[in-house]
């Protein structure tokens, strides 16, 4: 065993330089504050010292971690090869070892509404809706490898389906849920057709454009969608016509969302391990080889778009029922970006990773309320750091293990 790695003079010098660099970098924006009309300037030198100090310390800490890690890697190299497994700290263990843990988590989610306030339940319901959205987008991006930056469009389609059907025809939640899913799928195919030939980033920007187009239509076509003033008084989901207090209704919605999230997990899991799931993965991995293996890539892409969009449509119906009011402001590009972050952060194609990422990303801003005004700043920084630390996402993706006859 070697002695623990020490910081050298060089590291310290590097840290000091980093500190100075950030002092320079943040000088105009953090130190000077001007009032252009009154021509006054405020100098906030204290900020500069803070920035310099903090960035130097962070730089030093990063160096320390790096040296440590280098040391550990060296140590591992000297050990027998089989321990390399340890290099993937989040690699999932086999299923039977996870069962007790899943039991604990299940219990947690079941008793949650009885332990925590209505607000906590509400937040958790929102987070679970993002689990559904994340898993839906995971079909498109994670499984089939089709980068979609306009996923929120299908979410909007679902929400407005319920909103409008309720408004005009008084249709209930349960009738709207499948219709929302179907319409979502239909729009998925509508988007899918023109973009079949596009690859990678071109696909990304066209889907982004599609998302914006849907939002703009909702915003401007007043006769159809009531424009920015939105649709109000949408009914919450019913339960055999029982009259519920708001509190009970929220709890009911919570369990309902859990049920739909579980259904989503079940379906997405089955899809992944099916003939179609394999075709999507093949498409993602290598579309040329995929074609050569006799897979109709057009059909595979359209199915992915349709199924992914169907979940978004259903999540949209849930959303409309939950907020009871919808307007186009809820369906901006940022929303698509957040859902995409969930998929990538979770590890493309990994179901458990996406579930975990959705919960973390949605609960994180709530958690960060302690630092109130800094929370979006922290959110951005955390996204960057997470990607640097785990560029492949929280979990390495897991493919189905088949039992071999031996």
């Amino acid at each position: 065993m070697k002695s623990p790695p020490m910081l050298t003079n060089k590291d310290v010098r590097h840290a000091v330089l980093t500190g100075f660099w950030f002092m320079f970098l943040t000088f105009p924006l953090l130190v000077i504050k001007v009032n252009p009309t009154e021509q006054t300037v405020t100098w906030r030198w204290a900020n500069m010292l803070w920035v310099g100090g903090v960035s130097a310390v962070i730089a030093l800490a990063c160096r320390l971690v790096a040296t440590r890690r280098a040391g550990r890697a060296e140590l591992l190299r000297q050990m027998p090869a089989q321990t390399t497994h340890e290099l993937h700290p989040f690699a999932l263990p086999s299923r039977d070892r996870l069962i007790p843990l899943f039991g604990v988590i299940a219990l947690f989610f079941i008793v949650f509404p009885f332990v925590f306030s209505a607000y906590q339940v509400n937040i958790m319901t929102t987070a679970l809706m993002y689990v559904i959205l994340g898993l839906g987008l995971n079909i498109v991006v994670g499984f089939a490898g089709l980068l979609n930056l306009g996923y929120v469009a299908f979410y909007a389609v679902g929400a407005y389906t319920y909103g409008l059907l309720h408004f005009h025809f008084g249709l209930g939640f349960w009738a709207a849920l499948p219709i929302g899913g179907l319409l979502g799928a239909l729009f998925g195919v509508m988007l899918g057709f023109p973009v079949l030939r596009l690859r990678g980033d071109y696909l990304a920007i066209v889907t982004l454009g599609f998302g914006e187009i849907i939002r703009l239509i909702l915003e401007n076509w007043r006769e159809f969608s009531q424009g920015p003033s939105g649709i109000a008084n949408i009914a919450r989901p019913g339960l055999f016509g029982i009259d519920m207090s708001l509190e009970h209704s929220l709890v009911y919605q919570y369990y309902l969302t859990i049920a739909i999230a579980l259904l989503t997990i079940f379906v997405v899991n089955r899809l992944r391990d099916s003939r179609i799931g394999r075709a999507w993965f093949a498409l993602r991995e290598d579309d040329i080889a995929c074609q050569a293996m006799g897979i109709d890539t057009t059909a595979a892409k359209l199915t992915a778009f349709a199924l992914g969009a169907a979940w978004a449509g259903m999540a949209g119906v849930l959303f409309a029922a939950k907020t009871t009011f919808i307007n186009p402001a809820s369906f901006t590009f940022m929303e698509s970006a957040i859902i995409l972050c969930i998929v990538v952060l979770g590890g493309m194609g990994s179901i458990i990773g996406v579930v975990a990422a959705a919960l973390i990303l949605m609960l994180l801003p709530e958690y960060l309320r302690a630092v109130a005004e800094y929370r979006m700043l922290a959110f951005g920084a955390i996204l960057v750091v997470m990607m640097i630390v785990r560029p492949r996402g929280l979990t390495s993706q897991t493919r189905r293990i088949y039992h071999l006859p031996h």
Partner: protein
Amino acid sequence: MHPLLTVSGLTMDFGGIRALDQVDLRILPEKIVALIGPNGAGKTTLFNCLTGMYRPTGGHMALTPPGLPERRLHGLPPYRITAAGLARTFQNIRLFPNMTVLENVMVGRHCRTTAKVFGAIFRPAATVREEQETVDRCLALLERIGLVDQANEYAQNLPYGAQRRLEIARALATSPKLLLLDEPAAGMNPQETVELENLILSIREDGLSILLIEHDMKLVMRLSDHIFVMDYGRMIAEGTPDEVRRHPAVIRAYLGEVEADA
């Protein structure tokens, strides 16, 4: 005997460059046929046309499996050509690196199975049976290429030679009538080459024809029933290994114009 594959007048232009010029090709059932020629002769382009990756500028292609009617191939998309019975491997291995070895082969069964979204979600008895059959067949194929123990490994973690074999297994999973191999022995050591040779011979035993592009001349001469030679996008010679070896055009193409001028 009616040929399995008939190609006539196949032409492929890229912009102003003619990569294939009136190529004719006939492959009989249960034969190993080699396609040789200097680099840039158009061999891989021909493969890409045959499998539908490129859309040929002109010409005809047809597949006639024994006892079945003729099937026109030109103008079909790649997946339909594969479904018709043509499977291929790639010169620069194109496996699905983040899928397991077994799944790679299972993808090959796609065009011979039918489960749809409904089947995937609800798993009716028919789908379960189909899946089981797929797994069994694919494991058998892996057994054959000696990779059954690595079935649950990720394809990207396999050594090079095993990746080449896996590509062949994946192509075989599509139940082809004709297998196209693009430089299957490239980068293999002598031991691996011998194994490959046995594999190819055993595939012919199963009643398939094989068309291979290969630069290892010894291997080609040993294996092939028939050889086609290409140069500058044209078919310059064909015949048995012996005939081709002595063909003046082949000698000229391989040794260059220098000797011809001298």
